[in-house]
C-alpha cells in the first residue's frame, strides 16, 4: 500500500509531472536516459495505482450504499429477522475485501468458499478490488451465495460490456530500446480469467508479470488512456497479439491524447470533464484520463 501522507502533491499532478518528464527526456542532449525514465515510470505506476484506489473507493462506496439499501429492502421482505445480520455481513464482505499485494488467484479462491469473514483479504480503504474479484467469481461458479449475488447485481451485464482492453494489464512501463531505438509503452501484469467470451483472447495474451511488480488492481483503467501515451511511434511497437483487437478502439483515443499533448498542456486545460462530481480535476492528466471515451464507459458500466 502506498503511503501518500508524505507527499505534498496528489496522484494526478504526479502523473502529469511524470509524463512531462518523459516527454522532455526525448529532447535532452545525449539521448534518453534509460535509468531515469525507468524510475519515472515507477512513479507513474505508483501514482496511477493510488489514483485508481481513490477513484474506485469513491465509486464503490457510492455503489455499495445503493446496493446495500436495495438488498436490505429485499431481505426485509423475505425475513425481517435476518435483516440486520445479513446486511452487516454483506457490507463487511463487500467493503472489506481489497487486497493489493496478494496474488489474484489467492484472493479469488477463498471467495469461492463463501467464507463470511474475509480474513484472506486485508480490509483497506480501497474497496474496489472486489469489483473484479467478485465479478469473476460470478462468472466462474455461479453459486447462489448471498455474498456474490449482491455483487452480481452490481454488475449484471457489465462483465461482457467491458471493452476487451479493460481487464488487461495493470503495470505500465515506458522503455527505450537503445539497440533498436524504439520507445515502447506497455502494460503487463495479471490478467483476469474472465468468463466472457469476448475476453478470452485477452486472457491468452497474458504476459508474465515483471519480476518485482505488485498486483496493480488498476486494470480497469482502460489502458487506453495509458497506452496511447504521447508519441505516435509507440503504437508501432506493440507486439502483443491481444492488443490487436483493441487497436481500433485505441486509435481514436490515441489520437485524442496525442492531439492534446501536441497542442501543449493548454489543450488539456480547455477540455471539460463530463463525469460525475468525483472527477473534479483541474490537472491535465486527470482531464485527459477523464475525457477519454473508454474511461467514461467503464464508469458507466458499473
Amino acid at each position, binding site marked *: *500500500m*502506498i*503511503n*501518500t501522507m*508524505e*507527499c*505534498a*502533491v496528489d*496522484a494526478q499532478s*504526479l502523473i502529469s*509531472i511524470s509524463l512531462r*518528464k518523459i516527454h522532455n527526456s526525448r529532447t535532452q*542532449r*545525449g*539521448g534518453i*536516459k*534509460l*535509468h*531515469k525514465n*525507468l*524510475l519515472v515510470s*515507477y*512513479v507513474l505506476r*505508483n*501514482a496511477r495505482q*493510488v489514483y485508481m484506489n481513490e477513484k474506485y473507493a469513491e465509486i464503490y462506496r457510492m455503489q455499495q450504499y445503493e446496493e446495500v439499501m436495495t438488498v436490505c429492502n429485499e431481505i426485509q421482505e423475505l425475513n425481517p429477522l435476518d435483516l440486520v445480520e445479513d446486511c452487516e455481513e454483506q457490507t463487511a464482505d463487500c467493503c472489506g475485501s481489497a487486497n493489493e*499485494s496478494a496474488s489474484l488467484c489467492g484472493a479469488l479462491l477463498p471467495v469461492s468458499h463463501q467464507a463470511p469473514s474475509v480474513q484472506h483479504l486485508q480490509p483497506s480503504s480501497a474497496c474496489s478490488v472486489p469489483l473484479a474479484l467478485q465479478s469473476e467469481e460470478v462468472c466462474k461458479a455461479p453459486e447462489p451465495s448471498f455474498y456474490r449475488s449482491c455483487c452480481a447485481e452490481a454488475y449484471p451485464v457489465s462483465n461482457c460490456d467491458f471493452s476487451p482492453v479493460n481487464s488487461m494489464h495493470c503495470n505500465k*512501463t515506458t*522503455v527505450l*530500446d*537503445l*539497440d533498436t*531505438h524504439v520507445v*515502447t509503452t*506497455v502494460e*503487463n501484469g495479471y490478467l483476469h480469467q474472465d468468463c466472457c467470451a469476448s475476453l478470452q483472447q485477452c486472457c491468452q495474451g497474458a*504476459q*508474465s508479470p*515483471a*519480476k*518485482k*511488480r505488485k498486483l496493480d488492481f488498476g486494470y480497469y483503467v482502460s489502458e487506453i488512456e495509458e497506452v496511447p501515451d504521447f508519441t505516435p511511434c509507440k503504437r508501432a511497437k506493440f507486439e502483443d497479439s491481444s492488443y490487436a483487437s483493441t487497436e481500433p478502439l485505441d486509435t481514436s483515443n490515441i489520437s485524442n491524447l496525442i492531439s492534446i499533448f501536441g497542442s501543449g498542456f493548454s489543450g488539456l486545460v480547455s477540455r471539460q470533464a463530463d463525469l460525475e462530481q468525483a472527477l473534479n480535476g483541474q490537472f491535465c492528466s486527470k482531464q485527459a484520463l477523464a475525457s477519454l471515451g473508454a474511461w467514461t464507459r467503464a464508469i458507466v458500466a458499473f
Partner: protein
Amino acid sequence: MTCTFEYQLLEIVPADERVSLAEIKTPVACCNPSTHILTLIIRLRLFAGLVELQPRPWFCPRMLSPVLCSDLAALEPEYTEADVISTVEFNQTGEFLATGDKGGRVVIFQREPQGEYNVYSTFQSHEPEFDYLKSLEIEEKINKIRWLPPHNPAHFLLTTNDKTIKLWKVSERDKRAEGYNLRDEEGRLKDLSTITTLQVPVLRPMDLLVEASPRRVFANAHAYHINSISVNSDCETYLSADDLRINLWHLNITDRSFNIVDLKPENMEDLSEVITVAEFHPHHCHLLAFSSSTGTTRLCDMRARALCDQHAKLFEEAVDPSRRSFFSEIVSSVSDVKFSHSGRYLLTRDYLTVKVWDLNMENKPVETYQVHDYLRTKLCSLYESDCIFDKFECAWNGTDSVIMTGAYNNYFRMFDRASRRDVTLEASREMCKRRAVLQPRRVCVGKKRKETDVSVDSLDFRKKILHTAWHPKENIIAIAASNNLYIFQDRLTPSGHHNTPEIQSAPPK
C-alpha cells in the same frame, strides 16, 4: 592518532584556472613547515607545451593574477556548464589527482613536495559526437576516470564518456636531442651544401614537458550509456558497465570485449532494473560487484561461468512495505558502490542513506548512516526539480575507518565508523579564509536551536556535491562542487592513519 574532522582548506581550483593556458608564473605560496598549514592562494602554474589541449571555440581563457582568497568572490565569473566537474579520482599513491568535466576535459594535478596540488597536465579527452544511425548526440562529459597501477615512469589512466573508453598515457619529457645533422634547431631542413661535418645529437635538459597521448580507444561496445569502469587487480583487464550490460576488456585489445553480465530482458517491456555502478574487488581478480536501480547489489564470481547473470551473493535489505511511498523505488536506487580497501566491506549509497555491507552477510547492512533524512518529506519537490535523480558518490578513507559522501548546499558528510560520530562540512568560497578550519554545519528541521543552524528550507539544491575522493594514504580529500575543486587536509593528522579516533570540538575562532 586522533580523528578530529577538522579540515582546512588546502586549495580551491576554480574552473578557469583548471583549464586556462596560462604561462608559468612564480608560485605565490607559503607553507608553514612546522604546522603544515598552507595559506590559501590561487596560483597559476601550468607547464608549457601542452600537447593535447584544444581550445574550444566558445572558451575564453582568462589569466588571473595571484590574488588572495578574500578577493576571489568578487572575481568569480559565471561558470559555463562545460566546466562542471563530473569525476574526481586520486591515483594509487595519491600523488596525482585527476578530474574530468562535462566539457570532456581532463585535468591532472600533482602533489608538490610541500604538500599543495598543482596542475600537471590538461587535455581534451573526449569530443561530442553524433550517432547518425540513431540520431543521437553523444555527450563528451567524462563519466569516470580510473588510474592504472603504476608500472613505469609514465602514468596511465582510463577515461570514459557515454560510449567510448580511452586509455591515456601521461609522460614527462625533460630532455631534448640537439644537434641533428639534417635539420636545424627550428626543425627546418638544412641546405645540404652547408653541411661540412657530421655531429652526433646530444641530449640536453629542457623545461619539463608533460604530454598526454591516447594509447587505446575502446569503442562501439555499448548500446547504452556507460556509467562505470573499473580496473581489475590483475592489471591486465578492466570492466565497463552500461545500463544493462557489463563488458570485460583487455587493456591491450581494443577490437573486442567479453560480455559478462547482461540484464537486458527478452522483451524490453519487461525491463525492471538497470545497472547503476560496477566495480572489481580490490584483491580478488575474479570478483566483481554491481548495483542496480532496485536497491540491490550483487557480487559475481567470474569463475563460476562465463556469463555472470547468476549472482554469487545478493545484498538487499528488506523494505518495510507499509512505508512505501510514490518515490520508494527512486530513493532506493543505488547510486554508488565502493569496495573497502581491505576488500571485506562494500559501501553503497542510495539517495538518503549510505550503507556498509559485510561481504559475508547479505540480508542487511552492518551499518546504515542517514545522510540527509530531513529530505524524506521533501521528495515531491525534489522529484519535480529532478534533484531526486542526483547520483551521489561515496568514498572510504585509506584505513576504511571513515566514510564520506556529498549532499546539497555544498555540504559533505563524514561518518566515523568506530565512534559513530558524524560531521557535516561545507565547501564554499565564502568561508575560505586563511588557516580557516571548516566549521561543522547542522541542518535543522523546524526551529533553529543554534545560530549557526541551517534550515532545511534554505538549502540550495542547485549546489550539490556529487563527486568526492579520498587520498588513499593520507587525510586529504578532494571535493568537487560544481565547477570548483576543493582540496582539504586534516589539520592535526595530515598523514598517518586513524587508530583510536576521538572527536574534538573545533577550536573557537
